């Protein structure tokens, strides 16, 4: 006689330490195997989009900081690009270079958290500490430049809030030199560790067609093998001046598009960012006013605009409608984390409960951005 089994509903979160914020996952399990995952979001909802309608264009920038709090520079940048396109503002070259340097430093910092906490979810504590030590140095560079460590409000519409600190270039170079060995260490500690590979390879395989159908972007899509990077394929700012590779997953330790691939894409992207920053520091124009293009009063003409940037997590899009006033009529954000959270159900089906955290860590969501 067959054993009678029953499906059980289990709640994971919102206080679970590995949910990277406040996310509640409703799991339907059959024994140890997961049959369905329903993410429940909204615990961090702060009405970002509605708030923006009551703000002037430059007042929205501090709010964008608080969406993806691990990549605030990029949020500022995406918003600034959108409003600049709407108003037809051309920013000076020096500003563009500083923005690229800050954006790529932010990418390293964000990936350091992603990789570190991913190891932490699996049970590896040490690489997390080494990566956070180096992330602190990036935050110190940011603090030196704009005074804040996490919520920068640095990239403004038409310019920057401060020029870089006189010591910035030297300290950034020192940091980059010391950061390269860290990546090697992390590879030896974590990426090639057999126990880590056993936990991540062949887990949560995301086939390329599923990834495209769900609208995945960034390292999640590149982990499935498609070389699609907005910095290269829909160039914004001055990314066409730099030489860098678009990293894709190769299926080195198992199936193409598994958790390990997505993780390893992030590790390698940190080194690509180092390459970009080194080139940008070499070409950085020595002189120039970073505030010369900032308008006194931002009042764009009627119309709408959509711009997208390659956030550390994927495509971050801003859709802004202007009715000719000093406040935006509508600001809509397309956050990569929100889109990536949707694939959780597909990825986790048939896996063990302990693998869910590995999969969730590998798509690297930030709940502040999911809920906005």
């Amino acid at each position: 006689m067959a054993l009678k089994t029953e499906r059980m509903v289990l709640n994971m979160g919102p206080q679970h330490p590995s949910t990277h914020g406040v996310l509640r996952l409703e799991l339907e399990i059959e024994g140890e195997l997961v049959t369905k995952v329903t993410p429940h979001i909204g615990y961090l909802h702060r009405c970002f989009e509605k708030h923006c309608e009551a703000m002037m264009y430059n007042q929205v920038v501090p709010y964008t900081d608080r969406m993806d709090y691990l990549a605030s520079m990029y949020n500022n940048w995406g918003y600034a690009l959108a409003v600049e396109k709407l108003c037809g503002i051309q920013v000076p070259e020096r500003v563009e270079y500083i923005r690229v340097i800050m954006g790529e430093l932010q990418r390293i910092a964000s990936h350091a958290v992603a990789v570190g906490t991913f190891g932490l979810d699996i049970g590896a504590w040490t690489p997390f500490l080494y990566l956070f030590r180096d992330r602190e140095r990036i935050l110190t560079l940011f603090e030196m430049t704009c005074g804040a460590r996490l919520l920068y409000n640095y990239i403004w519409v038409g310019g920057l809030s401060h020029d870089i600190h006189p010591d910035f270039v030297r300290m950034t170079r020192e940091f980059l030199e010391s950061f390269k060995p860290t990546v090697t260490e992390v590879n030896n500690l974590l990426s090639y560790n057999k126990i880590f590979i056993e936990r991540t390879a062949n887990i949560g395989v995301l086939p390329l067609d599923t990834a495209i159908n769900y609208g995945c972007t960034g390292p999640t899509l590149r982990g499935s093998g498609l070389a699609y990077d907005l910095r290269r394929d829909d160039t914004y700012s001055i990314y066409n001046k730099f030489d860098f590779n678009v990293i894709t997953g190769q299926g080195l330790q198992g199936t193409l598009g598994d958790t390990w691939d997505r993780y390893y894409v992030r590790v390698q992207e940190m080194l690509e960012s180092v390459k970009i920053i080194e080139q940008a520091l070499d070409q950085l124009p020595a002189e120039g006013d970073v505030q010369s293009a900032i308008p006194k009063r931002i009042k764009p003409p009627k119309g709408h605009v959509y711009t997208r940037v390659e956030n550390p997590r994927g495509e971050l899009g801003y859709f802004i409608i202007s009715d000719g006033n000093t406040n935006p009529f509508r600001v809509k954000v397309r956050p990569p984390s929100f889109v990536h959270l949707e694939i959780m159900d597909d990825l986790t089906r048939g896996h063990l409960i302990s693998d869910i955290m590995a999969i969730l860590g590998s798509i690297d969501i930030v709940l502040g951005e999911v809920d906005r």
Partner: protein
Amino acid sequence: MRQYLRNTWDGIYTAFVGMKITFKHLFTRAVTIQYPEVKVPMVDRARNRLYVNIEDCIGCEQCSKACPVSCITIDTVKSTPTDPVGTTSNGKKKALWVTQFDIDIAKCCFCQLCVFPCPTECIKMTSVYEYSEFERESLIYKFASLSEAESAEKKANYEKFEAEKAAAKAAAAAKPADQNKTE
């Protein structure tokens, strides 16, 4: 069987590779600091608690308009010619008595947007970051230098001045009318 042994060996070997790295780090300098005893020095541009030099404030309310979270409340009273407010440190003449300048630091989001438009550079961000309080009300900082009684006096002064001005105006307007009548 062979694969099983190989996996086991790989597991042990790669764990030792990791151990070697952590062992090396045992002899590097610690990066952590013991916070309350040792503090990280703040950078020059640090963005922490707001401070207002009320002597220089001209009451233009540009900071409160720039604030995205409306944490600055300013109330002003116009000064009268007989009782001038004085000048700021850079020689600008002040026309308004600032009777209220409250910053609710609990609401503040430390974006520094209020600092940039200030014409006299009297509002600025300091490097003070340890200011926790037991009462939420204590986090509303009142920067206005005038006491309540003084504020009331200035207000009364201005109202009196306005009333006198209005009376004078009315008298001036009434005079020609009277002259017209007599002619």
